[in-house]
């Protein structure tokens, strides 16, 4: 399974490593801050940002509700423009379709622009096994490929690398002999990649959004490598998720108003390509042969469930950029190619709760709701995270050890007399544990459950008296006072 890439460590172990990694930690925090400020400035200057979000949400919901219609329309229009359309209900089927294309052309080299769908199905690995050289041409993806590393963000996957380690990486692996100035490194990459673009037989790419009315696929990029991938190689293979479709070019406009701002805090990206079909007679560039592999890979399971709003997701990463948990554990903490809030919702849907890591992800969230507020298509992300937790309990996949604790809470919190009885019992226990103090300090880290809190912060214990008792006495005293005053007035009146 290529969605969850680390099956050896637990989420907690990975998170601890990320927290300890001061450099990675700082890099993510700085990046989040930059995205936050840039996005905020653009959103404030947009006259009707909230209205745009609502329109985008409505469009995406409409497509999800009529998905069969739009998939068919998209595929037919693409076919009419000379595209070879393949349908794959699973990742494995998509891989077979891709392998067939390579085999039919005897292709042994492919250039690739960044694509989450291909990450999801582990395409690079399979092609390499089949003897195909796959070259990632997106700068960040090339860094990861060269380093043998995994993405830590869905939009900026090498966020956790510095210019120093990138320069060192290319020195060691690719013969770079320059300094750590980004322009110098990218210039080196440009020279290194140019011959690859020219010699590759196949270009592999994803698709940010697909337009049903024209059968077009789009690429939103900043580096120009995407345009090289989709124009130079004679054969092009486009991976399109069934959840990428928008109805019309006009509706695409709405998403382009939201996507770059939400993703990287830019008004627009340096490149935006809308590609329709293969090269026509008389045209000078573009691939002679185009294949779309339209993939489901578990997405249809979201339809008609509480998770259907996730079909709106445009993969902008805005939720990662605002998440307080992502901020500290980075994408690597989650161990999924889809990390952060959107990843918590999507990953278990795609791989199921049977996977311990997918299940653990749903608890790596404070439910603070910042993600939902920032989502350009109004996905109630934090509600869906909680829905996962509810479904985990409902389907009996919860940790059975915790059940008695929650059952006890249920009993205590639904009965005032029981609650008061337990408070009376709890107070002396707390007195012993605190040695007469008002809070538990680090010496209490051994206490099961509570210790996980007190190992890093103090825990105030049950107060010596209940507020409700005070209020009852207070109101009784007030009533008494009123009575006395009334009585006094009566006496005065009588006198």
């Amino acid at each position, binding site marked *: 399974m290529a969605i969850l890439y680390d099956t050896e460590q637990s989420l907690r172990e990975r998170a601890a490593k990320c927290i300890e990694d001061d450099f990675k930690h700082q890099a993510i925090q700085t990046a989040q801050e930059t995205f936050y400020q840039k996005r905020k400035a653009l959103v404030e200057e947009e006259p009707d940002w909230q209205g745009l979000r609502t329109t985008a949400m409505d469009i995406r919901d409409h497509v999800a509700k009529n998905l069969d219609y739009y998939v068919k329309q998209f595929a037919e229009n693409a076919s009419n423009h000379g595209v070879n359309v393949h349908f794959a209900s699973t990742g494995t089927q998509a891989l077979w379709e891709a392998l067939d294309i390579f085999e039919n052309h005897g292709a042994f080299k492919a250039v690739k622009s960044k694509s989450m769908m291909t990450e999801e199905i582990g395409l690079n690995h399979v092609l390499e096994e089949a003897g195909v050289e796959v070259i990632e041409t997106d700068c960040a993806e090339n860094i990861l490929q060269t380093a043998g590393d995994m993405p830590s963000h869905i939009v900026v996957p090498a966020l956790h690398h510095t210019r120093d380690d990138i320069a060192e990486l290319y020195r060691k692996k690719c013969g770079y002999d320059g300094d750590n100035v980004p322009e110098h490194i990218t210039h080196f990459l440009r020279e290194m990649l140019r011959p690859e673009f020219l010699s590759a037989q196949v270009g592999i790419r994803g698709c940010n959004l697909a337009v049903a009315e024209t059968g077009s696929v789009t690429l939103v990029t900043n580096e120009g490598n995407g345009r090289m991938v989709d124009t130079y190689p004679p054969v092009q293979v486009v991976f399109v998720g069934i959840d990428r479709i928008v109805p019309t070019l006009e509706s695409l406009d709405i998403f382009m108003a939201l996507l770059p701002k939400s993703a990287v805090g830019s008004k627009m990206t340096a490149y935006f390509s809308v590609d329709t079909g293969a090269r026509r007679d008389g045209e000078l560039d573009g691939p002679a042969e185009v294949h779309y592999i339209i993939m489901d890979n578990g997405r249809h399971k979201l339809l008609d469930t509480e998770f259907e709003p996730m079909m709106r997701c445009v993969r902008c990463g805005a939720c990662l950029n605002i998440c307080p948990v992502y901020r500290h554990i980075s994408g690597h*903490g989650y161990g999924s190619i889809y990390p952060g809030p959107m990843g918590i919702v999507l990953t278990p849907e795609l791989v199921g709760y049977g996977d311990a890591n997918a299940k653990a992800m749903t608890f790596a969230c404070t439910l603070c709701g910042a993600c939902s507020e920032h989502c350009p298509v109004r996905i109630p992300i934090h509600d869906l995270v909680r829905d996962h937790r509810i479904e985990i309990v409902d389907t009996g996949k*919860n940790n059975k050890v915790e059940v008695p604790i929650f059952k006890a809470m*249920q009993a205590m919190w*639904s009965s005032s007399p029981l609650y008061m009885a337990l408070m009376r019992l709890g107070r002396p226990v707390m007195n012993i544990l605190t040695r007469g103090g008002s809070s538990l300090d*680090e010496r209490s880290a051994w206490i099961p459950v*509570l210790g996980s809190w007190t*190992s890093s912060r103090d825990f*105030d214990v049950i107060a010596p008296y209940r507020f*409700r008792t005070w*209020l009852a006495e207070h109101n009784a005293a007030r009533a008494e006072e009123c009575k006395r005053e009334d009585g006094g007035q009566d006496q005065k009146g009588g006198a």
Partner: protein
Amino acid sequence: MKVAFFPGCMVDMFYPEIGIAAVNVLERLGCSVEMPEEQVCCGQGLLNSGYAKETIPVAKNILDAYDLDQYETIVSLTGSCMNAIINDYPTVLDDVEYLHKVERIRPRMFEFTDFIVNQLHTTDVGASFHHKVTYHKSCHVTRFLGIEEAPLQLLKAVEGLEYIEMVHAERCCGFGGTFSFKEPEISAEIVKEKCETIIETGADVVCGADVPCLMNIKGALARLRTQGAVDRDIRVMHIAQILDARE
């Protein structure tokens, strides 16, 4: 005005002094405060952990406790619990009678600061507090209930109070209910950063309108103080305590 009070169980269990301060303020503003003794907890800790079925009896207990024929106004001292009642209960309850009760409660339930500013139309409650104060804009009060101005208006009207906004005041404190027990390392990291932003303001008091966040921040600041990571005592207070203060 007679108001029913919903303090949230953490006030009842851990911080009765916060409840007392709120009652003092409300009484000073002409309210009489009552609290049905059957009410205990809103149950969001269960719900947010995925125990929806177990939440139902807890929710019903709360909804039964407040006699809506008797109370036209309910004041909540904790934003997150109020949010659970008015916004989360409809997602777990399966019983029309109780769903109807939620619909009846929603328009008459007010968060403490919102109630004072927008129902009692008061911003100066007569408090004096000669300290530098910063305010944690908790997720539930700010983002979920949409109450942003009221607490600041109240604070700024307090005599002698110098308000200093912390950076990213609206960022989560890292409590997250059972999250702080299930993922303590991440939670600790988030609250540590929250504390750093509080310390940076130079304030000697941090306040908020959500009790769970305050418990988290208080615990973390106390530990940082013991470890010598902060060189001064920073008091953690509920906004009600500041509004009740004369210092």
